[in-house]
């Protein structure tokens, strides 16, 4: 039975706490307060809340101006409206001058955009931001991790992006687990046959896949890579060297996100067979999240099949 908790609420609770302890904290919205459940923040800190209306380019550039004067603005709206509509502002006015602007993108992934369709489903955000120098990029596992990740990025200077979901987000991890920025972690180690790298709300699927494989005698290690940038390359290379085969599982296009990041480490450092689970270079439809992810190649069966395939390649069989 899947439990749900809102990553959006978790973000706002965490930000409200931050604003309570650091008056330099500012929330910048583009008529997105309702989207990110910010009513509580608005009520408590009306003087620290800026809404520029449906104008994301202005929201991001304006946040750059706030940051240049020493404030710590969090721009929060749908992931694509930050990373696509305001892409140049993010690159040239936030990342290039290395300003302390934090960005929080909702509806990351096809599952998070469930019934809204492609206009509100964002599966390119991480690829876009990864191509821009100097942005810390975090894909927390679930609501509890979002709360901690938001505080972690607030504590480092410079631009950062935190990906959140729809507000109906599966609980993936034990709520007591800490969040350590920049670190990968092993969530489950059945053995070293294959490594499954995953993040965000795809984690429960990766874990279920590993469980199923274990019953069939294939021992996987599930590794969470919540910080896509800076990527903990050494730890990843070490795991790859141990398992000799890898599968990535993410709710993002297989181009540009976790799958690409791991492929880069593999190609440059530890050449092993790899299969990428994610949206395969096409536009999805809309529908209930779980059904959508099953339909677009992120089912538990897809994950186990990918693991068997890389294992076969590792062993020199035709996968």
């Amino acid at each position, binding site marked *: 039975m899947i439990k749900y908790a809102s990553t959006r609420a978790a973000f706002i609770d965490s930000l409200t706490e931050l604003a309570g302890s650091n008056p330099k904290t500012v929330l910048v919205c583009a008529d997105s307060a309702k989207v990110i459940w910010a009513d509580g923040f608005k009520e408590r800190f009306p003087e620290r809340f*800026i809404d520029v209306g449906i104008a994301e*380019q*202005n929201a991001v550039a*304006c946040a750059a*101006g706030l940051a240049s*004067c020493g404030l710590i603005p969090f721009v929060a709206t749908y992931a694509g409206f930050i990373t696509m509509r305001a892409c*140049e*502002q993010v690159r040239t006015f936030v990342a290039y001058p290395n300003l302390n602007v934090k960005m929080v993108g909702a509806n990351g992934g096809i599952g998070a955009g469930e019934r809204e369709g492609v206009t509100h489903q964002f599966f390119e955000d991480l690829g876009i931001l990864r191509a821009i120098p100097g942005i810390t990029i975090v894909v927390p596992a679930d609501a509890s991790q979002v709360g901690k990740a938001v505080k972690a990025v607030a504590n480092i200077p410079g631009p950062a992006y935190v990906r959140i979901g729809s507000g109906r987000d599966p609980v993936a991890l034990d709520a007591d687990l800490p969040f350590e920025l920049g670190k990968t972690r092993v969530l489950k180690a059945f053995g070293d046959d294959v490594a499954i790298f995953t993040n965000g709300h795809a984690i429960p699927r990766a874990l279920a896949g590993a469980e199923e494989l274990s019953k069939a005698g294939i021992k996987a290690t599930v590794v969470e890579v919540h910080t896509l940038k800076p990527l903990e390359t050494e730890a990843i290379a070490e795991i790859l060297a141990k398992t000799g085969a890898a599968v990535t599982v993410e709710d993002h296009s297989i181009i540009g996100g976790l799958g690409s990041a791991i492929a880069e480490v593999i190609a440059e450092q530890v050449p092993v067979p790899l299969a990428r689970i994610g949206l395969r270079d096409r536009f999805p439809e809309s529908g209930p999240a779980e059904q959508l992810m099953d339909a677009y190649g992120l089912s538990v069966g897809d994950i186990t099949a990918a693991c068997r395939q890389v294992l076969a390649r590792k062993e020199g069989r035709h996968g």
Partner: protein
Amino acid sequence: MANLKLLAEKAVQTRIAILQMIYQGKGGHIGGALSCTDILVTLYYTVMRIDPKNPGWEGRDRFVLSKGHSVEGLYAILADLGFIPRAELDSYRGFGSRLIGHPSNKVPGIEVNTGALGHGLSVGVGMALAGKMDQKDHKVYVLMGDGELAEGSVWEAAMAGSHYKLDNLIGIVDRNRLQIGGSTEDVMALEDLKAKWQAFGWEALEVDGHDFNSLVELAKLPIVPGKPHMIIANTIKGKGISFMENEVGWHHRVPNEEEYAQALQELELRMGAF
């Protein structure tokens, strides 16, 4: 009382530096740099509250060169005021130089990296909001080109400026009426520009962008509390060098040896008259 003679002198001195930087650096945007020289000189030598010895001073007024391609005059002024060493101007556009073709905050005295057009006013809105939030009395000056007003983001910022009653925000349009592709009115008509800003809730004023008598009045802004101000400064592209004035080709042409000599002679003649 501002010393108008000093401003006029600084303006010629700055124009000479612009010409030399662009000639030696083999690149730049000379027409627009010359059209906004008098505005920059007025801001930096009389209007703005700044401290060259302490570029990061918290109480400083903020300046955003939204038309970042006109950076040469700004570098010359920053060097003259002591923000950067004067000798550094010779490194303009060279490998490893901080003085690249568009402003960067690596240069002391420059707040933000601009040059991609249409964004500066939004950044200025953020700076002005920061002032209001923290009850600071700094003012924010944003110098824009007229051509960049075709960018939609400018008008997002225009709405926010009046919505948040940012009377600490002063925009200036370098209205030289030319952009790279021709006349602004042919490329994408801007008129009635003053009425547009007024309709967006700004206090809009028109001035002669080369008349120091009018420009020094910038120091008196805001004149209407609760409103952001937009100054439409009518200017001449290429101002100060006879054969460049109002010639669209001089948007980013680099003068050849002969042209350089003639231009320098014209400016030095004027300098000698002080």
